[in-house]
């Protein structure tokens, strides 16, 4: 057996970059344990009792914020949500000032979302507690990639050797970047499909196969991950029209026929039905695992908060010692 470090030694979770396969396995294994707790009638444990988690969101979010809030609360932590208004001109000032202010209140973990790539890392340099990246610009969204991995692992039993096709607005997507890093680390085969205007420069250097034809990209895929068209990040026109985009890059029954019959359909949400995904497919309970993703998101975030606060709790047990 290969070398396996016994504990998760990272101080923050700022990205998938830098995580080893064992780190990822550890998060997923622990998250698996927390799924049961979330499904039971009494959903709470006291693992994080007495600890404070602050969700600091500089960018609008409902599902990620709710997911982190539930995760913290189910672990018994005191959770505070701070939605910081995004005044465009003083964004950065607010970021560092807010970080210092919050730090003075001795939180144990900060979950941060920000519209600028690298902003969470910048903030992490200014605080003493654990920082979880809840999504920064077009850079990374590590808990999304982890929950996607858990969803796949629970359905397919593995990640290694699977063909995963990521479709849509790859250019602006932090979800795509984190997933590419994670899936490559775990030995999956990753493809990206997008119109060339929404494909990042030199994306092939991240170890993916690049397609502009969706049927070719979907051929024999085990998983298809659809991405939302992020019009709010676009300056200028990247596709001629929604109609044309859906025609060539929207997920339909007909295009999906190229994938394996048991291909799973994933979407990080929020979905734009009729833009990147046909409603019928999104609701296909046999293949769409979109709601699984939401459920497992809470478990993954519990695992992350648990692992990152172990040092300060003086608990270095391997797997959910207090579960």
């Amino acid at each position, binding site marked *: 057996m290969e070398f396996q470090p016994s504990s998760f030694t990272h101080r923050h979770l700022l990205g998938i*970059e830098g995580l080893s396969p064992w780190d990822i396995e550890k998060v997923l294994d622990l998250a698996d344990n927390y799924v049961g707790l979330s499904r039971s009638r009494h959903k709470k444990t006291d693992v994080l009792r007495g600890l404070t988690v602050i969700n600091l969101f500089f960018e609008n979010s409902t599902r990620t914020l709710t997911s982190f809030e539930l995760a913290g609360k189910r672990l018994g932590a005191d959770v505070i949500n701070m939605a910081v208004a995004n005044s465009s001109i003083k*964004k*950065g*000032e607010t*970021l*560092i000032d807010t970080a210092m202010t919050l730090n003075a209140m001795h939180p144990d973990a900060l979950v941060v979302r*920000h519209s*600028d*790539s*690298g*902003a969470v*890392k*910048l903030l992490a340099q200014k605080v003493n507690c654990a920082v979880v990246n809840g999504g*920064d*610009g*077009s*850079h*990374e969204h590590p808990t999304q990639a982890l929950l996607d991995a858990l969803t796949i692992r629970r359905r397919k039993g593995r990640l290694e050797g699977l063909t995963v096709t990521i479709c849509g607005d790859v250019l602006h997507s*932090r979800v795509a*970047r984190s997933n590419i890093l994670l899936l490559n680390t775990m030995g999956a085969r990753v493809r990206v499909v997008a119109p060339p205007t929404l494909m*990042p*420069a*030199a*994306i092939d*250097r*991240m170890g993916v196969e690049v397609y502009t034809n969706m049927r070719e990209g979907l051929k024999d895929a085990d998983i298809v991950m659809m991405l939302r068209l992020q019009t709010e990040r676009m*300056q200028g026109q990247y596709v001629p029209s929604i109609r044309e985009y859906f025609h060539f890059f929207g997920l339909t029954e007909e295009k999906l026929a190229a994938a394996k019959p048991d291909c799973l359909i994933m979407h990080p949400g929020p979905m734009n039905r009729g833009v990147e995904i046909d409603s019928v497919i999104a609701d296909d309970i046999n293949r769409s695992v979109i709601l699984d993703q939401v459920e497992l998101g809470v478990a993954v975030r519990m695992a992350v908060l648990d692992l990152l606060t172990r040092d300060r709790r003086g608990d270095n047990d391997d797997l959910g010692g207090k579960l």
Partner: protein
Amino acid sequence: MAERRTAYINAHLIDPASGLDAAGALLVEGTKIADVGPGLFAEGVPEGIETVDCAGAHLVPGLIDMRVQACDPGFEHKETIATASAAAVAGGITSIVTLPNTEPVIDDVAGLEFIARRARETKLAKVYAYGAVTAGLEGKELAEIGLLKEAGAVGFTDGTRAIADAGVMARALKYAKAFGALIIQHPEEPRLAGGVMNSGELSTRLGLPGIATQAEIIMVERDLRLAEMTGGRIHISHISTWAAVEAIRAAKARGIAVTCDTAPPYFALVEADIGDYRTFLKLSPPLRSDFDRRAVVEGLADGTIDAIASDHNPQDQDSKRLPFVQAEFGAVGLETLLPVALELVHGEHLDLKTLIRRLSTTPAELLGIPGGKLKPGAPADLLVFDPFSPWKVDAATFRSKSKNSPFDGRPVAGRALRTIIDGRLVYSAS
């Protein structure tokens, strides 16, 4: 009363203009160089002449920095003429040329006179100024190029903005010809330059919008055509790409009146140095690949790139301690110009004489300003330096008001020992 005379003896003299590269001495009389050469004072220095023993250090014409933002007037919290001048002389620079992107913009004679007055008050480095090509740097209507030239503007540029409209650029080149005025362009097609770093694998990994090298090359190629069409003189600033070096090399071979410069970041750093979003390395043009960096070094070696400027662009903490996308572009460079440029010599890409040509002689010739040579009758703007003494860049000790150096902490070799302007000692290393 006789003018004060100072003899600099035991010096290693380098003068690119005359080809001099030998041990010798130099005599300053008043504000001018009176005599220079290997045999001078071989018999000893006569009575009544003050003697400075250079102890084998190099004595060269003071550096002439043709691209400096002094932020004065308008942004005095970042830099002033006084602090920029102090930083310049500490870096061995005796003349600086300031960009017109101040507040107000230097697009009329009053603006030029303001800078001249500030420089006189400071009495450190000689300060020259570029005038704006277009009124308000808006890229639309020509500024008063003739009047500005008459009042002392040494060249014309819209600073950190490219003159994007080809029609305006063609007219500027044509019109400036009548006054022998040089047009200096920031080479970047603005519609392709919406990003914050070089476009490629790294920008993709960091999730940052990229600027393709084509943004530079398209503007360079366009301007070369316009220079050819109009017969005007164009100078292209801070070349950063292989393709631009190639295009200028070919244009020079065709006989087009083009010159260009680059700055230390473009031959000493690459995009990978940005690492984890280091905003001090957010520059315009952006840092490029190592392939481009090596092409810049080659361009400097073969003379395609005529000059090296510091591209000094001071930014305060509030402008840089931000997420990468929001941070301002630019880096200070006055106090690291010499040691970082010397890396080209230590790396055996250029000899010392060629380097001093790029840092002093050529900029003086291009802009028609005094200095840049060790010649009797020339102003005694001199630099005594040791190209080998090792030190570590420490931005906290900079005289510049802003400390945004991409070279902070870098081990370097070579520094100014004495800087002399018009015969007057204005800086001496402690």
